[in-house]
């Protein structure tokens, strides 16, 4: 029961924090420097690892599809399988998981240490609301950067699949035919679907990590615990939300 009330409390405080932060959106032009800094941290620094991982995800998808489709002669459809899987599911998912691990943990650690060392209290007494200075620029930055990360994940994954398809003797599909089947089955709607997912995941990760960071109490040990909790909660939420968002988007 205690655990249940804690979950409800977490949801409630996150929603509240979201509302309060969004209300400060008009101050974005004044905080443009902070917004750009967060774009850099969320987008630019996460980009290389997103690209590397997506490349291998695309490659593995192509390899596995080649192996399993060989039996019923469906090898020529590998392009569409990799295309759809990356765009609808794995691109946004990988970007979100890496965001949680790389950026979410850093946000939780920074805000938790600010809370523990009373910097957040100092902001409050200075009449600078923490949602305005600490949360809103991060939310705005993730909204802008998340689709970029997801699109790059998609593209790199598609090319990874193409390279493996032409380089593996047992598959041996050249890039033009790989991409032509991909074009046949992959619609703009599918990519859009993935981008909507990426936005939802990204916002959730940043919001949850900010909320957990700002609600930390105690000392250095609690900072570590907050980071762990932030990443674990983010990953669980990504996977749970994934199901419901997919359901909603396919139904729409």
């Amino acid at each position: 029961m205690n655990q249940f009330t804690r979950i409800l409390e977490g949801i409630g405080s996150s929603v509240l924090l979201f509302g309060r932060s969004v209300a400060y959106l008009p101050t974005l032009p004044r905080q443009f420097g902070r917004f750009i800094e967060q774009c850099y941290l969320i987008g630019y620094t996460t980009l290389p690892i997103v690209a590397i991982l997506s490349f291998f995800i695309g490659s593995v998808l192509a390899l596995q599809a080649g192996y399993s489709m060989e039996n019923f002669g469906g090898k020529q459809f590998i392009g569409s399988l990799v295309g759809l899987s990356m765009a609808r599911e794995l691109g946004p998912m990988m970007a979100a998981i890496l965001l949680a691990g790389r950026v979410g943990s850093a946000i939780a650690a920074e805000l938790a240490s600010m809370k523990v060392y009373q910097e957040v209290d100092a902001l409050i007494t200075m009449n600078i609301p923490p949602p305005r200075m600490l949360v809103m620029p991060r939310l705005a930055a993730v909204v802008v950067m998340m689709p970029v990360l997801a699109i790059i994940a998609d593209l790199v994954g598609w090319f990874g699949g193409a390279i493996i398809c032409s380089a593996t003797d047992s598959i041996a599909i050249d890039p033009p035919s790989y991409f032509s089947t991909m074009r046949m089955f992959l619609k703009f709607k599918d990519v859009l679907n993935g981008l909507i997912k990426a936005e939802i995941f990204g916002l959730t990760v940043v919001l949850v990590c900010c909320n957990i960071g700002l609600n930390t109490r105690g000392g250095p040990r609690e900072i570590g615990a907050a980071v762990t909790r932030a990443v674990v909660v983010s990953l669980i939420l990504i996977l749970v939300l994934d199901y419901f968002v997919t359901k909603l988007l396919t139904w729409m």
Partner: protein
Amino acid sequence: MPIAPNKASSNAFSAGNGGAVGIAIEDLSKRFGSSEVLKNVSFSVQPGEIFVLMGPSGSGKSVLLKHIVGLELPTSGRVTLDGFDAAAEETRKQVRMALVFQAGALFNSMSVYDNLALYPREHRMANEVGIRDKVMRALQILSLENAVQKFPAELSGGMKKRVAIARALVMEPQLMLYDEPTSELDPVMSATISEIIATLREQYHVTTMVVSHDRDLALNIADRVGILMAGKLVSLGPPSDLRHPADPRVADFLNPKIDLKNPRFKHLES
């Protein structure tokens, strides 16, 4: 209680509109779970006064301070600043108050300059040139000109406290609150900080409340001293009252004798 009225100066940091504010604490109680930290505390601080709140560790001094800035909400009773409820968020827009935290609470990711410039930038008090003037003057008052580009991690304990005071000063506060400003400092630095607190009040006519267990600070700069023990206000009056306190607990707190024949911890064990 006669309090020498200070003439408000027209200096850069004097409380702009409104001037110094008074604090009224009425029947304030605070519970954390089953422990009662503050028990029906009532007193008031006059505008422009230096009020020192003393008491042993864990007596609820810092919690009381947090109620004044609205970081803690009372279980019962209330705190008002010139009639504004301290628990309301709106009050922070009406009354400019600055709290100097015990550990400084400087922003570790910012240089000393940016720490000081944050408040005027966020509240658009001046343009960058004006802010620079303000910040440099505050640093000058506290002899910190050389620390301007340093980061909090590079400062000594005494410097951190002075930077925290400078940061509070830049806010042009109507109410300055200090949480243990002289703890963990050597005797000379403690005396310096006490002098700074008294001088700032003289020059800028701010209401000042200091939470401390520094006897020298209380006796030398306070207009009035309150003593809090186990969440209750046990003594309130001018510092001269403290030279011969009637209450034996207060006497022991202010002038503890080291008695090796009959040590205190033995009493605690039994």
